[in-house]
């Protein structure tokens, strides 16, 4: 798979070969439409239910609370539109945070153009939402609080249990985008007392184009895509059977390997962090180093710009990402880093290193070998570096 220098697991993961193996038959001998009458089709719907059970286990949910979608983005959209359309007679106020993924932010932005009022909670300089802020912002018209579990860029983990408790005390539903946490760490919807939760297959070594919305049984929401009565009427469309089988297997593997991954990857991440701090002056570690995904490291390398760093790294075979505007297609740097209070130029100079189960200690050593001279070269070109 040539993953030696891949450090971008928060962006996407390869599909685990054991998942691929389990998917393949559903293109061929098991290609039937699960809605069809004949027995072979009925067997496919049993396989789907088994997959639902596997995903439910990952979240400590009930199988009938698991709904398959086309990805994390759709799950977030379905949760937010589903509730707001359902409850719009009750109120028009949504609370979220400033550091959500665009799948939540842009959905909220759209709704705010359609007569909804959206409050974007700030975060502290480590990326944490303050529960007191949530308490203050809730009003009688609030119908939904949606705050992500772990942030994709900085890895900061929100106190969702506490946040959802605050929402529930006021009788308000709580959704969390767990696309980055699920599969990496324990996500227990009962313990966290979550009403709705989104996950994405391609972040947990499952196939792309598949996601899940967990929704408590008593929570009623509107569908977003209409047609056949698939997914108990919540999501129409002939089932993406290979995708469903894939996320199920991926969930099963995640349950088995989660602890081991944490045990192995956290020291590697910490080593990279320490190595960067020791060998490169003037860096800022972004995120909350206590409450942080064990695989994620976000660092701003001052006086230089992220895309240039990525390009030099790419030339040596390293795949990473940056919060710089230049590495995306927008003009603004990462809204997450700006929300932490970073200056624009510091956000432009950020690198995200996100590890996954195929990373080895030696690859990290190699990264630490390669990065400092790149930084040095780029700084020697920068008008800011020497001006210090």
């Amino acid at each position, binding site marked *: 798979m040539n993953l030696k220098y891949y450090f971008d697991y928060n962006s996407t993961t390869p599909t685990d070969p054991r998942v691929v193996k389990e998917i393949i038959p559903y293109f061929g001998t098991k290609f039937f439409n699960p809605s069809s009458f004949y027995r072979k089709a009925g067997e496919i719907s049993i396989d789907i239910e088994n997959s639902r059970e596997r995903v439910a286990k990952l979240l400590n949910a009930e199988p009938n609370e698991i709904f398959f979608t086309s990805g994390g983005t759709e799950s977030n959209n379905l949760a937010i539109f589903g509730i707001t359309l359902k409850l719009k007679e009750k109120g028009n106020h949504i609370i979220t945070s400033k550091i959500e993924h665009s799948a939540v932010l842009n959905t909220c932005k759209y709704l705010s153009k359609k007569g909804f009022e959206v409050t974007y909670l700030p975060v502290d300089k480590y990326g944490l939402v303050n529960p007191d802020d949530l308490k203050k912002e809730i009003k009688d018209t609030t119908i939904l609080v949606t705050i992500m579990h772990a942030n994709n860029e900085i890895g900061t983990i929100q106190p969702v249990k506490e946040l959802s408790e605050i929402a529930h005390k006021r009788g308000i539903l709580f959704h969390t985008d767990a696309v980055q946490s699920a599969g990496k760490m324990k996500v227990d919807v009962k313990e966290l007392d979550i009403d709705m939760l989104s996950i994405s297959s391609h972040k947990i070594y499952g196939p792309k184009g598949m996601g899940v919305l967990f929704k408590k049984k008593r929570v009623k929401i509107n569908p977003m895509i209409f047609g056949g009565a698939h997914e108990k009427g919540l999501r129409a469309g002939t089932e993406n059977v290979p995708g469903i089988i894939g996320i199920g297997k991926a969930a099963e593997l995640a349950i088995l390997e989660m602890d081991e991954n944490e045990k192995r990857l956290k020291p590697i991440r910490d080593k990279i962090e320490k190595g960067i701090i020791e060998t490169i002056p003037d860096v800022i570690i972004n995120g909350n180093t206590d409450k942080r995904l064990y695989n994620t490291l976000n660092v701003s390398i001052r*006086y*230089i*710009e992220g*895309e*240039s760093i990525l*390009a*030099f790294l790419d*030339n040596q075979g390293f795949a990473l990402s940056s919060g*710089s*505007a*230049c*590495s995306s*297609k927008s*003009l603004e*740097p990462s809204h997450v880093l700006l929300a932490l209070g970073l*200056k*624009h*130029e510091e956000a*432009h100079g950020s690198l995200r290193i996100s590890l996954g189960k195929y990373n080895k200690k030696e690859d990290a050593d190699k990264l630490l070998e390669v990065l400092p001279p790149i930084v040095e070269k780029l700084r*020697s*070109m*920068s*008008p*800011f570096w*020497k001006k210090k």
Partner: protein
Amino acid sequence: MLYSKKVMEYFQNTKNYGKLEDADGIGKVGNPRCGDVMWIYIKVKDNKIIDAKYETFGCVAAIATSSMAIDMIKGKNIDEALRLTNKAVAEALDGLPPEKLHCSLLAEKGIKAAIEDYKSKK
């Protein structure tokens, strides 16, 4: 992001960077907020740019266009250098992705600013 081979070549093997200690004109353009800052240094003799360098904070395109622009004005006289367009710089790099065209504009502006600075000091 897909850059042309030429862009990547100029980015990786960029040589024209650094401070020109005894520069006759310096053009400082761009804004760190936007992720691109370019400082163009020129040394002028008999109306001719006899040396030039850049310092750039910015992306691949910003660095490659800086370097290319320096190549394109070195040895030219001032009037010629003033006629250098961002389009010419981009073309010399075999094109830039659309969202990166502003970088070549920055190079054009930087050179103009450096020449203006030189003229104002004269």
